[in-house]
């Protein structure tokens, strides 16, 4: 599967809220709090288990007025970071996308 086709999903363990554009994420198991910056928060918000990285990057490019490649790089880097920390995981393309 290409990286762009991966579908990021919020881990069901997390609790989260967006305050003034910034996502606050709690992982109860680790008792950790994470605060994401505005771009990271938007990616978190868009990770609804239906959109893949390409879909998210297209929205980011439009909303933050950056080229698609920059947005894609951000989305890949960010989702990769959060999956490593088990705050997010990737679903298979056929599993979640409608």
């Amino acid at each position, binding site marked *: 599967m290409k990286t762009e086709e991966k579908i990021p999903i*919020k881990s*069901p*363990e*997390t*609790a*989260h*809220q967006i*305050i*003034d554009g*910034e996502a*606050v994420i*709690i992982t*109860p*198991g680790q*008792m*950790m*709090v*994470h*605060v*994401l*910056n505005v*771009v*990271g928060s938007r990616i978190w918000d868009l990770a609804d288990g239906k959109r893949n990285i390409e879909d998210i990057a297209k929205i980011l490019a439009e909303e933050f007025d950056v080229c698609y490649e920059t947005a894609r790089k*951000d989305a890949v*880097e*960010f989702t990769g*970071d*959060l999956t490593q920390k088990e705050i997010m995981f990737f679903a298979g393309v056929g599993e979640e996308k409608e």
Partner: protein
Amino acid sequence: MRTAVDPYSRIVKKTLDRVIPFTVHWELTYHCNLRCPHCYVVSQNSREELSLGEIIEILDILKEKGTLYVIFSGGEILTRKDFFDIARYARKKGFALRLLTNGTLINESVADGIKDLYPLSVEISLYGSRAEIHDRITACPGSFERSIKALRFLHERFIRTVVKSLMMKQNAGEFQRMKKLAQEIGSQFLYDTVIIPRVDGSMEPCTNRLDGEELYRLLYPEVRDKGEDGNSQQDDLSCSAGLNVLSVSPYGDAYPCMGFSESGGNLTKNSLSEIQHSPMFSKMRSITLSELPECKICKFIQYCNRCPALAWLETGDLLGPSQADCLLARVIKSIIDDKRERAVMENQIR
């Protein structure tokens, strides 16, 4: 792209400044299977508690308005047959849950259900290190054994548990044993010494409060000398009730905190904004130390964690002192003074 824990306090400040209900303490029901004499709850039998549908609507509003933490308490939350429907919905919305329960209804299957909720903590009330004491307070034989079993079931499932206790005349001698028991089980131990009056103004539960001498004996090993400033009371009184904290009754009435009997409105009828701009909420937010005629000149203020709701319940005066808080501040000051004196004497002997 990701920033770590540090900016969290900035977010919390934002919720205070903008009156965002970041934490909601929700009493889901006043029904309880125990009969503790210190309980402040007064059930209004003529009123219907919120239905699942109403609760879901309110949870949707809270998500939209910025709530992250939801503390479910009661009564006993597990007496609601739809408790797991409520809690699962709350988790689906992304709320961070703390569950306050007496634990007596938690068997292995319920513990499995709780595990799937990924709560921040399950906090179980315990009033003794043995059944004889605890069951006498709860007026329910067998309750101690069931609460302890619940703690063990939860611990086996790697769920963070907290043993919460209220220290009073009936169990003051149990304090150290309870701490040890909690440690053995793998729970955090939290305690309070202030019994609050019933929300209808009855002072009956307060007859179980510890007196000054009993408090001194109990707290002596616990109080740490933090230097000349003591607990350094701040001018904002460090009370977030009505700012980023909101309390909800089983009927949907909203309060700055659970200690108040005057609500700011009902979440099934009033908007959150109407409630937050109600006289009670506005008054709570406006209080500063300079407005408190007795507290502002009190020599124990730096040892005091004044609770406005307690003052309100005890005297009907939001700006007055609370008997219980005053006593506690005096006892803490006395312990710190005695410990300092003892340290000086020990140094002299050396």
